[in-house]
């Protein structure tokens, strides 16, 4: 108690100073450890504030400033920030008394209803989307509680020659402050500067690469160059400036992926965010390769279109794709197999995505505009080129997965849903390719079949994780991934119906 009073007294007496000078953007570079990794405070603060509120800021305060000020509440700082907890599910909103049209609740109001949340969670036996959202809101409140109790922010402390991370609550002790007050008028800043300096001496500043990665926002720049490239190549039909922008997009994305690999120390395909990122880049690169090989710009345009779709997903589908870098589960910690098997499969999906875009484009053009028989056959040949890449890469990827599984677990094949669905994708495309040589699949059927077949890719890529892995009990289609996938299927089926019914054949 005495300790608390001393620190409170200290903070109260310097509250104006502390509020103005301590919680500043300078803290963004401060090293902290969370989720098993050392990272800049900026990353921890932004991830946590985003998780709790769905926003990167708390009113005018940056995430780092807000995170810092909230952490100081543990020491009695009389701070009230207007933190609002994100709530998406309609039923959960009803339970917490949130009005229609609103998506958040004031944190203090939510904390007062924790008992209600817990009772509701305990009552529900089925782990449906409602229960999952209840748990998520509870986790958001727990995260907030961990911040204001100074548990979430860990600070490096020198222990002999080594550096250990302790919570802010343990770090900012009465003894330390009293000892430093004799040396400095500003003991808190002094302590933090010393902790950072000790850390930098012992471990270096490699962790700051992550801050640079986030600050550079390379994927936003890539989005801009992609849009401009599409405009130049499609609307203006200017090839060389378009090609330069394509090269710039590829360079930006390769830089971003490389930095991410350097931060995580592993292949860039370990979670859904990274596979989407890699697939977009892969589609563009494959599009360029086939363009060079076939002298046909349609592949690059398809690559750019798929790239922009993936970049938009990365930017806007936060509920479904987690941008954070987390440690891998033990079984995946093999860089060789991870980098070969997963990347091959994702590249195959990227190649199949090109066939999907060209097929849909051809189908819609044929439905609304006049496409000659020769043009249609040429379009089919372009689609075929993409499928060839996709099928060979997918077969190789599946086999590499089998070899990895055999090497690591002793089973070449285990009927795991992810591997089974990748085999389904292969079988579906192989069936289409076989059928193409029979009277069953003439060009007019080949195009819609290829457009529809990409739904199996989406099922293998997203459906296994967002629908099958969560169990069919929670088949609510109200969670991010399931909603996305359901919408995709609905739109694709609508396009297929539109493209095949009363089609104008040339």
């Amino acid at each position, binding site marked *: 108690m005495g300790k608390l009073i001393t620190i409170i007294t200290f903070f109260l007496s310097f509250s104006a100073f502390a509020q103005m000078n301590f919680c500043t953007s300078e803290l963004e570079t401060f090293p902290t*450890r*969370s*989720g*098993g*990794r050392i990272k800049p405070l900026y990353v921890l603060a932004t991830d946590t504030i985003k998780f709790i509120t769905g926003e990167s800021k708390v009113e005018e305060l940056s995430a780092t400033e807000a995170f810092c000020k909230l952490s100081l509440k543990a020491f009695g700082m009389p701070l009230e920030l207007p933190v609002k907890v994100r709530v998406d599910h309609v039923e959960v909103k009803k339970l917490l008394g949130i009005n229609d049209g609103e998506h958040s609740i004031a944190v203090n109001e939510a904390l007062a209803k924790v008992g209600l949340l817990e*009772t509701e969670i*305990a*009552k529900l036996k089925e*782990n449906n989307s409602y229960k999952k959202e209840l748990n998520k809101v509870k986790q958001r409140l727990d995260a907030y509680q961990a911040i204001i109790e100074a548990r979430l922010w860990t600070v490096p402390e020198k222990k002999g020659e080594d550096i250990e*991370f302790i919570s802010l609550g343990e770090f900012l002790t009465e003894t330390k402050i009293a000892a430093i007050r004799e040396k400095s008028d500003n003991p808190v800043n002094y302590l933090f500067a010393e902790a950072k300096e000790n850390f930098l001496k012992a471990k270096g500043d490699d962790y700051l690469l992550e801050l640079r990665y986030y600050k550079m926002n390379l994927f936003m720049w890539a989005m801009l160059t992609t849009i401009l490239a599409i405009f130049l190549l499609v609307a203006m039909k200017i090839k060389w400036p378009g090609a330069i922008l394509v090269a710039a997009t590829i360079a930006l994305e390769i830089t971003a992926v490389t930095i991410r690999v350097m931060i995580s120390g592993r292949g860039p395909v370990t979670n859904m965010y990274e596979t989407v990122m890699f697939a977009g880049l892969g589609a563009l690169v494959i599009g360029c390769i086939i363009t060079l090989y*076939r002298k*046909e710009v349609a592949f690059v345009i398809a690559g750019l279109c798929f790239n922009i779709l993936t970049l938009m997903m990365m930017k806007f589908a936060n509920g479904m794709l987690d941008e954070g870098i987390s*440690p891998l*589960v*033990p079984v995946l*910690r093999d860089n060789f197999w991870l980098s070969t098997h997963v990347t091959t499969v994702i590249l195959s999906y990227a190649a199949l995505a090109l066939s999907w875009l060209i097929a849909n484009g051809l189908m819609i053009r044929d439905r609304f505009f006049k496409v*000659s028989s*020769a*043009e249609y*056959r*040429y379009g089919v*040949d372009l689609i075929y080129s993409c499928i*060839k890449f996709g*099928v*060979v890469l997918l*077969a*190789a990827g599946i*086999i590499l997965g*089998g*070899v990895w599984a*055999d*090497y*690591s*677990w*002793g*089973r*070449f*094949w285990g*009927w795991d*849903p992810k591997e*089974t*669905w990748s*085999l*389904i994708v292969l*079988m*579906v495309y*192989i*069936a289409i390719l*076989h*059928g193409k*040589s*029979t009277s*069953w699949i003439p060009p007019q059927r080949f195009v819609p079949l290829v457009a529809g077949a990409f739904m199996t890719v989406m099922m293998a890529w997203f459906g*296994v994780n967002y*629908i*099958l*892995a969560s*169990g*069919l*009990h929670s088949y609510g289609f109200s969670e991010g991934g399931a909603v996305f996938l359901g919408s995709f299927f609905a739109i694709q089926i609508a396009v297929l119906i539109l493209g095949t019914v009363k089609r104008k054949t040339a």
Partner: protein
Amino acid sequence: MDTIIHYYRKIEQFFGNLKFAVVIITLFAIFLGYGTFMESYHGTEYANRLVYKSIIFMGIQFCMFLSIFFATMIRLPPRKHLYGFYVIHAGLIILFLGSFITYQSGIDGSLTLAPNQASRQIQLSEDEFKIQFPAKGKEVTIDLPFSAGPKDLNIEYEGIKLKTFLPFSKNEMSWIPVKIQDETQTTSRYRIFNDNFGEFITLSLHPKSDFNNTLQLGPLNVHYMPSNLSACFVSNTPDGLIIWNGESSECISPQPAGIKKKKHTNGKIIAEVDFLGQKILFMPEMSPLPLDAKFELNEKSPFRVFSKKLFEKNPHLFLFGKHVAFYNKSTSLWEGHPVEIDQQVALPWMGFKVRLLEHKADAYATMTPTYVKPIQENSQVIEGNMKALEVEIEGENFWVTSMEPSAYNQADERIRFEIGKKIITLPYELVLDQFKMDTDPGTSTPASFESYVTLFKGNKGSSKHHIFMNNPLKHENFTFYQASYFQTQAGPYGSVLSVNFDPGRPWKYLGSLLLVLGSIWHYFLRRKHLAKPGAKNG
């Protein structure tokens, strides 16, 4: 000969046809998709039994093999532009053969290693039924079918009939009729609930029932007693004493005037009560047992003495079939309430109520295995993970489950039954010296599992090995992989290794390599493309 060739050509034409390939590949893909949904809903084992290892799916795979084989044969002698095609199909045929060899001769099991204990037994995934005759030192094992649904076995061995096998089951309550009704051996079902919580409970006094007569629901203790004891619990006497005859289930709750007290030579109080004309002596401060003529505790006596005061401090609910009794702290009185079927009584704790659902004296409730499709949630099978086999001996039917072994006394012999996994024994043994689990810094998330083991090879000595993820131990054609771990009751961790012997492996690798190389050859070499309409040739 011509006829044979004629029929061979017909078979070749049928299976080697592209349309047959399209049909069989599509069918294969549909089955795979169905399997993944079954796996998600019902778990891996159910999906394996229903789809992936079913006869029909094997048949589809065999048809695929025929399609690939005859599609190749039909295109012989070799043509240059089909070289890639031949390599792909040869790769697939070799891949199929490799998989078949694995299916026929491979071993895929697990080895559980407790800390510092030797183990050489590999547990396989197939189930077997063991019948043991300990007196004769004899054991018989019968393979259980790998079916997804119930299967009638109709196997008989020395008068023991094996009837229905349930690969997935759960215990469900059923009522077994009794010949003679006995009010002291009743069974009742209740629901105890408030606005936030509800629980169905079954309590029984019948000796053959699987249900007890007491249970605990959080802080609430529930006791089920014969109905004629209810009056004793309702009466409010200063001592709160109840004297109960366990044989007749009669009781009295004597008023102070009915209790004669005197001091024993040891200074303790001896009380004497009149129990329906019979004098009972006891020491209420010392024991629930009555005293005999020599003032010693009489363990053989059917009488028991206790004070209701024991049940006043914490919540205790007494259920007597159609009566309910409890101590109400707010009134400091014992309360009794009659309750009929589908009626409820309010309890004095947190708004709880008790509702009587069923009450029977002519039947007792017991748990019987019933087939269910298993249910998976968060990668765990939460329902239906019990296997059961119905056995008949001497006209009596009973169930043996995978939860625990059962025994039956036949004449002078005790027969033991058990459902378990097939076991194979290695000619060497492994000892777990240490299991190590590292976590990601500052978290409890596992970062690696590692087993330090000693391999004892009999006369050939021993060797130390370090097994961890992506680093298996290979010994005499067997490969040991780090798979899982468990914590022993004593505290240290044990390790589970996945054990594999795969004679089809080289063929699968060769087939895979040919498949990929053939695909590249077929799709990318010697291919012609259509020229863009309107573009100049060349």
